């Protein structure tokens, strides 16, 4: 575990030196993986019984996660990575991917159930589901816990240079003229439009045209102050470098960067912030459904679950894993928000038909 963290720190340091090169590596690392995957596809049908194709976000497993599972089961795991829920959905809808386990976020679980690209799980094969905490069962996107099992969770907040600008509490600072050119937002419709909606006290899932319009006007005003819209993995190094002062990032990135760099802090802004949960699901057409259940059950065991969090710095939905979490991480209040903070977090839900209105609004903002 310790080893995993050191190498990740070194990784981020190098990234810091290389400015936004953060995702360069993920792009690099995903290419050989992809070719390995397709190579496996070509010849792998015969011995398919012991092979698991895992499709996950990049840099989202501990170093021990896959080797330990392979050792335990004798299976061979191939991991491919993606950078957005939408990319994952498009791949599955195009069909014939052969993936056995995928990790969509909350609202995407809804979309995937409705568009029938995932299959119900057999919970009799996932006894470790008992380890999952109450707060992570029966959530709106899977109220009966039929389709998904939580993997990791986190918030989306602000990583900022506390030394330069002092403590901040809410979204307003991200819209402050004073920090013109020193701000970056996530290049994601729901997160960025959501931040503007929540700043006004609205729901992150609002479909009211007036509220969307208000959020749009705010973002149009904010745009000249921005360095740009980027992936969260690109934003953290910009803040760590001193290139910008305020960055909209996911909690794992934010907390890790704040621990690594003096003077930086990660805050869950008022009056509301996103609480997201990534979940393991099994796509329709998975080649190895039994092994997929084994894998999901393995991730939910306390040791692998703790290893994940000790590597990613994201939250764990796994109560049994809590005693094994690094002390350093447990001390960060944003990692384990108080009830008061937890209550103001909002979960992104699929907005159905309004998805296109959201998308058009964000395009309007970006081309203003």
């Amino acid at each position, binding site marked *: 575990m310790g080893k995993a963290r050191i190498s990740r720190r070194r990784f981020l340091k190098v990234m810091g030196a290389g400015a936004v090169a953060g995702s360069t590596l993920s792009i690099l690392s995903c290419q050989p993986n992809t070719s390995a995957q397709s190579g496996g596809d070509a010849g792998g049908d015969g011995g398919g019984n012991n092979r698991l194709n895992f499709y996950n976000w990049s840099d989202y497993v501990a170093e021990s996660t896959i080797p330990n599972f392979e050792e335990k089961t004798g299976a061979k795991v191939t991991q491919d990575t993606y950078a957005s829920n939408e990319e994952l959905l498009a791949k599955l809808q195009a069909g014939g991917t052969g993936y056995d386990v995928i990790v969509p976020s909350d609202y995407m679980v809804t979309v995937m159930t409705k568009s029938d690209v995932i299959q119900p799980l057999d919970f009799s094969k996932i006894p470790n589901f008992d380890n999952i905490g109450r707060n992570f069962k029966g959530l709106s996107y899977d109220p009966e816990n039929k389709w998904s099992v939580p993997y990791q969770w986190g918030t989306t907040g602000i990583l900022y240079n506390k030394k330069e600008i002092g403590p901040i509490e809410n979204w307003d600072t991200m819209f402050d003229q004073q920090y013109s050119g020193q701000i*970056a937002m996530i290049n994601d419709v729901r997160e960025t439009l959501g931040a503007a909606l929540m700043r006004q006290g609205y729901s992150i899932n609002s479909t009211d045209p007036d509220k969307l319009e208000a959020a749009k006007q705010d973002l149009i005003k904010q745009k000249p102050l921005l360095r740009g819209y980027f992936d969260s993995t690109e934003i953290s190094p910009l803040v760590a470098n*001193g290139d910008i002062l305020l960055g909209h990032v996911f909690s794992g990135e934010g907390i890790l960067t704040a621990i690594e760099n003096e003077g930086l802090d990660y805050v869950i802004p008022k009056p509301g912030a996103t609480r997201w949960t990534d979940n393991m699901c099994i796509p329709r057409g998975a080649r190895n459904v039994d092994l997929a259940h084994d894998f999901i059950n393995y991730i939910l065991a306390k040791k692998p679950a703790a290893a994940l969090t000790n590597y990613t710095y994201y939250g764990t939905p796994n109560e049994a894993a809590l005693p094994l979490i690094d002390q350093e991480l447990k001390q960060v209040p944003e990692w384990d928000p108080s009830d008061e903070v937890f209550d103001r977090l909002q979960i992104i839900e699929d907005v159905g038909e309004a998805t296109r209105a959201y998308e058009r609004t964000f395009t309007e903002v970006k081309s203003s």
Partner: protein
Amino acid sequence: MREGKGKGWSLGLAGLLGPAALWLGIFFLVPLALILAYSFGTSGIYGGITLGFNPGNYLKVFDPLYLEITLRTLVIATLNTLICLALGYPLAYFIALRGGRWKNALLILVMVPFWTSLLIRAYAWVVILSGNGLANRALQFLGITDGPISLIFTPQAVLMGMVYSYLPFMILPLYATLEKFDVSLKEAAKDLGASRWHTFWRVTFPLSMPGVIAGSILVFIPSAGEFVIPNLLGGSQTVLLGNLIQQQFLNARDWAFGSALAMMLAVMLIGAIMFYVRRIGTDKLGGI
């Protein structure tokens, strides 16, 4: 006798053209037909598509927001083509006519960037141009600026990135044409009393027109569909048609509208090329 000969000829032709025709048929025409079919379909709320006849997707193209993005795309692609031509022509001319024994070495230097993936090169630009990057440090060291200035994540940076990426596509066809240029024509023009300027515009340039046309097309088409550079070097703040199409397929889950946009782009490009080749191409070529 005659018939037999004709048949053999066509068999040989089929053998030569067949593989390429098959390849293009499967990997170009079939996908294109799919996109055309999709563009008249109706997208499901959760993605996927129902085929049918729904011209609504094409009507949506005329939304002022999307027209503005289209116009911006055409302006940037045109500027990119003109800048590549202005930079590439003198270089190709020099290599072809003055390169001497360095010709091959110089050509290889033009192609060196292709040895690395475009993504890596774009990220290299991000590192060089960022606030604490090499460019800003050099400017400050030389006393030209006081603090870091914004060199990246602007429309200008997008244009610069495109010129950088597409310049070789302009240089290579220009070189191929200029290399075959008969220098004695220049001497003849000089003997007949033409100035250097005149010789260039009346003799050299018109004769290099096939290269100019080929280079312009090779640069203009991909830059009109570009979506990686605006994201990486533009900080996603400059939305081009390529980005819009990508967003429709992914975020908006609207494959039908994305396909309609893609068809519109294709039609626009074909139209622009036909206009260009007819007007400029034949005028200049015919005017020799």
